């Protein structure tokens, strides 16, 4: 795989969560909405078909949770007020290749949860983060933060 291929509904993606974003309640690490923070409102994930959970960690203390692509794509029920069409939530391949302008490390498994059209207000993104954290929480951790 080159990383450019569209993700199938059956694929799984990993989300890296820094340890400091993970509160402990009743002895368990919880996945809160902060786990899906993204300044550009496009949370990054890695394709499980192209990378192991351990490889998805940046630090050994990071937690790794997982999302099913079909379930993320099912978050499509919000209607855009301008066009009266539903927002389409998708997981799109965004491989980071050698020689990229930002000089980021190569990551062909890199993908993003994106919304079309882009959310016009911040509260929509807050809702998306809440939904993603709930869906990830249902599956639990692939690697618990330490």
């Amino acid at each position, binding site marked *: 795989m080159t990383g450019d291929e569209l993700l199938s509904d059956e694929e799984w993606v990993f989300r890296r969560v820094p340890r400091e*974003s993970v509160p402990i*309640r009743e002895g368990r690490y919880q996945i809160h909405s902060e786990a899906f923070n993204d300044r550009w409102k496009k949370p990054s994930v890695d394709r499980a078909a192209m990378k192991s959970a351990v490889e998805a960690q940046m630090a050994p203390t990071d937690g790794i949770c997982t999302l099913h692509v079909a379930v993320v794509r099912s*978050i499509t*029920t*919000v209607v855009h007020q301008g066009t009266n069409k539903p927002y389409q939530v998708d997981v799109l391949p965004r491989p980071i290749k050698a020689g990229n302008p930002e000089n980021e490390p190569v990551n062909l498994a890199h993908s993003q949860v994106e919304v079309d059209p882009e959310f016009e207000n911040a*509260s*929509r993104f807050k809702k998306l983060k809440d939904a993603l954290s709930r869906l990830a929480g249902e599956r639990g951790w692939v690697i618990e933060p330490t």
Partner: protein
Amino acid sequence: MNYQSGGTEALLDTASRAMHSGVEGSASAELEDRWFAGAASRLRDISRNRITSAILKMRQRGDDWDGYGSLAHDLQSIFQAIDAVESFIDKVSANGLNWFDPNVGLDENGHVVLEWWNGDRRFTVYFVPDLPEFLCSWGPNIESQMHAGKLTSEEFLKKWRWLSTCDA
């Protein structure tokens, strides 16, 4: 009710039952008035200090603290959140409701976020400029199971009642 952390009022209920088992009638009421008012106040102080300390800890987060490009903490938002916690605890107490602590975090813009969970119900407050914003959710469907808006003083109590009456 099944709160994610032990509520101070629940602790007081337990203590009250223990006290009533040995003291009866008007003596019990007097003892309760004198002892519990002070105890409840101290427990509120402990809670307030714990949350304030967690909010102040957010000052350690600089730019890109999470590796996803999030901005550093916003100092104005930190002060706003500390003031609000004081007011939230007082409101909850004055209305005879149970208080329990939120998770404290930051959003990608460096604004303080307080997030309470009770079973499927979540109540999240974002300390953005001007009025804080809230998000109430009870499932992952962002159209039919979530509600968001500006958080006024009256709105806080309504949302708290909604959160704390969940039979989780």
